[in-house]
Each structure stands twice: as C-alpha cells, then as structure tokens.
C-alpha cells in the first residue's frame, strides 16, 4: 500500500513524536539529576541543574568510589557473566536441540517436555535449593555461574532451537552424511551456519535476561567478592542509611549508557529477535 500520506498520517507522526519525547523523560531525568547535588534531587527533581545545584562530575566520582567495592569491578563481572553464560547457552542448547530433533528417541522427548515445563517455573520455587546447590558445587564465581545459567535458562533456548531446527530441511544433512561427514563436522560445517537467525533471537533474549538479572546472582554468587551491576545498585541504595541519590543516579547512568549504545547499533537485530522469539511461543 504505497498511497500518499494523508493529513491523518501526518498528525499521527506529530502525536507519536510528542509521546516519544515524554517516553524518554525518565532517562533524561536520570541524566540531569546525576549532575545535581544530593539535596536538590528530591526537592527540585524536574529542574535543570543551576549554579547552586550543579556539581559537575562529582556524583560520578562519588558513585564509582562509594562503599568498599569498586563499581567498575561490578561492571566487569556483569560483562563476564553475561558473555560467558550467553555463549555457553547458545552453543550447548543448540547442540542439544539438534540432538533432540534428529535422534527423537524417548530420552529426547522427555528432555524436551522437561524444558517446556521449566519455562513456567517461577524462580522462587527453586531459589533456595538452587543457591545452596550452586554454593556446594562451587558455582558461586563469575567464571562458573554460567553453568547455573545454562541449567536454568536451557528451557526457553532448547524450546526455541528445536522449533527452528524442525523446519531445517534434512536433505542437506543427508548429503553431508553421505559425503562422509561425522556428526560433529555436519553440525559445525552445515547446521550451525543455518541457525544464524535463531541464534540472534535466543542470544538477544538471554543477554537481556542475564545482564539485568538480580536475584539469581545475588543468591548464588559469593557477593562479598563478586557483584554485578544490579547487585551493586541495590547495595548502594539498600544497605546505607543515608542514600546519596545524586551518586546513585550517576551509577545508574553509567550502567545504562553502554546498553543504550549497543541497542542503537543493534536495534534491528534486537527487535527482530524479540518478534521472532515470541512468535515461536
């Protein structure tokens, strides 16, 4: 439908432009308040910083050095956990899903239904036992917690991968097998490249979940030594009597800027990934 845009459509553009600006106000608020002196955040939340309230990057310096744990360590550990976990989930569950679809024996079927079942389990159901298991198996460091994420996140990933692999034509793999490829070569040389689009979908959903997850790492990690960004923000805000709102806003700003930059560059994939992921459900 390539008709000319009518007056109504132009009006819609204007309305949406206004709503979009309003929609961004909260993020803008964080930005301006991160430059204000603490006592002004609560009283003049919506005013721009003026000569009296402006503190420059003081809040940022304070926020990053506040407490006895360096904020940049939390950023680092968040990054490590997210990258390792998402990578591990993508690799292992896509292989498992291929096994489930192609072998399709009783074990595969049970595994598949267990995965579907695990998707509706609220985390509170397993949180106590999961964190004590993680503790006992020494899965309480950023380097080992990806195994916990693989286990708890396997459900959705396996479900999405199996749904996709069912539509991959068998002939290509048969040809590879006849040419003498073993299972591993077939998977990595033939199947893996075909999974690119679903990999992006699963990857996007997993990264969004793991990066922002609070309770699982909070309960499983040894948090005196390792913190993630959400844990750090909660710790700044929750455990101190006098909360420095200006510094908290600075820390929040530091934590959302990289996310927004990544989003602006990859938004095409992220939005496609979310849409594709939902349709499969």
């Amino acid at each position, binding site marked *: 439908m390539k008709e000319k845009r009518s007056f109504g459509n132009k009006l819609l553009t204007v309305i949406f432009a206004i709503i979009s600006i309003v929609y961004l106000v909260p993020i803008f608020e964080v930005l301006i308040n991160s430059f204000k002196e603490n006592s002004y955040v609560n009283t003049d939340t919506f005013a721009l910083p003026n000569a009296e309230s402006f503190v420059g990057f003081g809040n940022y310096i304070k926020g990053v050095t506040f407490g006895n744990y360096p904020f940049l360590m939390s950023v680092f550990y968040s990054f490590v956990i997210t990258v390792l976990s998402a990578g591990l989930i993508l690799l292992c569950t896509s292989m498992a899903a291929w096994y489930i679809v192609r*072998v399709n024996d009783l074990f595969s079927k049970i595994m598949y239904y267990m995965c579907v079942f695990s998707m509706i389990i609220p985390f509170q159901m397993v949180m106590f036992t999961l964190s004590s298991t993680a503790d006992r198996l020494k899965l309480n460091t950023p380097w080992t917690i990806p195994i916990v994420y693989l286990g708890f996140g396997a459900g959705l990933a396996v479900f999405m991968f199996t749904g996709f692999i069912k539509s991959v034509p068998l002939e290509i793999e048969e040809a590879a097998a006849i040419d003498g490829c073993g299972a591993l070569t077939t998977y990595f040389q033939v199947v893996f490249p075909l999974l690119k689009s679903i990999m992006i979908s699963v990857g996007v959903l997993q990264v969004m979940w793991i990066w922002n997850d609070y309770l699982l790492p909070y309960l499983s990690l040894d948090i005196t030594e390792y913190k993630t960004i959400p844990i750090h923000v909660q710790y700044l805000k929750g455990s101190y009597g006098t909360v420095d709102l200006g510094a908290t806003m600075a820390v929040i700003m530091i934590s959302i800027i990289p996310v927004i930059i990544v989003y602006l560059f990859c938004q095409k994939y992220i939005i496609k990934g979310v849409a594709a992921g939902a349709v499969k459900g």
Partner: protein
Amino acid sequence: MKKKKNKPSASAMNSRLISRPIRRCFPIFMLPTFIAFCIGFIWPFVQGLYLSFCKFTTTQNASFIGIENYVKALQDPTFKHAFGYTTLFAVVSIIAINVLAFTVAYFLTQNVKGANVFRTVFFMPNLIGGIVLGYIWSMIFDGILSKYDTYLLAKTEYGFWGLVILMCWQQVGYMMIIYIAGLQSIPEDMMEAAKIDGANKWQTLWSITIPNVMSSVTICVFLTLTNSFKLFDQNMALTGGMPVAFEEGGVMVNTTEMLALNIYQTFYASANSRGVAQAKAVLFFILVATLALLQLRMTREKEVQQ
C-alpha cells in the same frame, strides 16, 4: 506465523543415516546441557518439593513434618494479602499494557513517517533492569509527590499505581513489537477485500484485524500474565512492600508486597520459617502454572486458523 502442523512428517523422515552418528556423540551434544539442566533445574525443583514438607534452616538439616508448612502458609495473612494484591495488580497491568501496546502498534503500522524511530524509543526501557527501573521511578514519583507534600511510600495506592505505570513504561514496547509482527502478517488481500466490500475502519478493525492477531494476543497476554505474577525486582526496588499496615490481631502486613517478594521475605528475613516459605513457593508455582495453562487454552480457542 507458521503453525506447527508439519511436525510429524518431518520427524518421521529422520533417517537412521542422520540419527545414528548423532546418538553416538551423545556426550558432546546432549550431556553438557543435561548435566547443567539437572544442576540448575531438576535437582533444585525436586529438592524444593521435598523441602516444602520439611522443617529446615539449611538443605542439610531437613526433618520431615508433613503438610504443616502448607497449613501455616495458607493461614498466613501476609501471604493472603500478597495474593490479593498481586491478582489486582495483574488484572490492571494486563489490561493496561495490552490495550496500550495494541493501540500503539495499530497506529504505527498505518504508514506513519518515522515509525522505526518511534518503535526504537518505545522498546528502549526493556533494556533497563528491574532494580534500576525501580530506583529511577521512585525518584520521579517522589519528585512529583513532593510537590504535594507527600511521598511514594506514604500510601498503598501510590505504590500500586506507581508500579502499574512503571510496568507499562517497560512492557508496552515489548508487547508492541509482538503486535506489530502480528499486524504485518495479516494477508493484504484480506484487507483489500474488506475495502472493496465497503467496510469502514472500525468494521475492518473488529472483523479482520483483531481476529487475525489473536495469536499475538495469546502470546502477549501470556507474557504479561506470567510477568506480573512473577514480578520481583521492580516491586522490591520501587516500594519494597512499604507502607506497613496492621490488620486486626496486630499482624503486620506490607501492603505493597507481591507474592514473589513475600516468599523471598519469608525465606530470608529469618531462618525459622524456611519450610513455610518453600511451601508458599510450591503453591506459587502451582498458581502460576495453572493460570498460564488456562489462559493459553482460553485464547488459543479464539485464534483464526490460516
């Protein structure tokens, strides 16, 4: 878009040529996921079920006491309150989020200039985590309410509507994406046929558009339903259950505490009620699973088969 109808034929075609070498590689393909799945899900789930019938402070010192925990959990006034509060919140937020998301998606697919930019903006809050969202909005609400000499934690209503606004801000963009995908998959000839038959915009919306996006509605209602019942981070960061009220009998109730937070508090506020907390968690799981399945069944019936 594609329905899973051609599934059986595909799996029947699986030749042994393919399956045998894969089966031989079980330790490489399946074992890592299987072991992690046992550690991260199956074992904690089974142990959690068992512990709900036990008295314990750690997983090591459990002693079986039967259904006592469940009796205590069901009699707990804070749990009942959390249940009522969560249900109310879920109903309000499911309606609000889906109506808003559908409306935005509907108008954005009307050949609007700059639709991609608006879509990008509306989706953005999804990338911010629940804890951070809670603190951003608590600052904003406190800023607004301070103009009226009050604050967010002063009244239960403030916390309730605050959480609804927060969740709308976060989720509308996500659901909008799903609705847009649904709207774009409606066959164009159907729309054209309606136009030729002289249907006006409302008639087209009610008789063609909405029935054709029912599969998106199923997904979005499912996601908003489970998200609202499982909500934890945003609830904890925005109000943390405050303000406190006293019910008759002097029982203290956190009036904006939802189920997930209530279970968390029962677990970790003191070590004495962990059995009760685990029983609450099992009840919570049964509730969420039942609701999810019921909802899927109800809206699936209304879907149009293409």
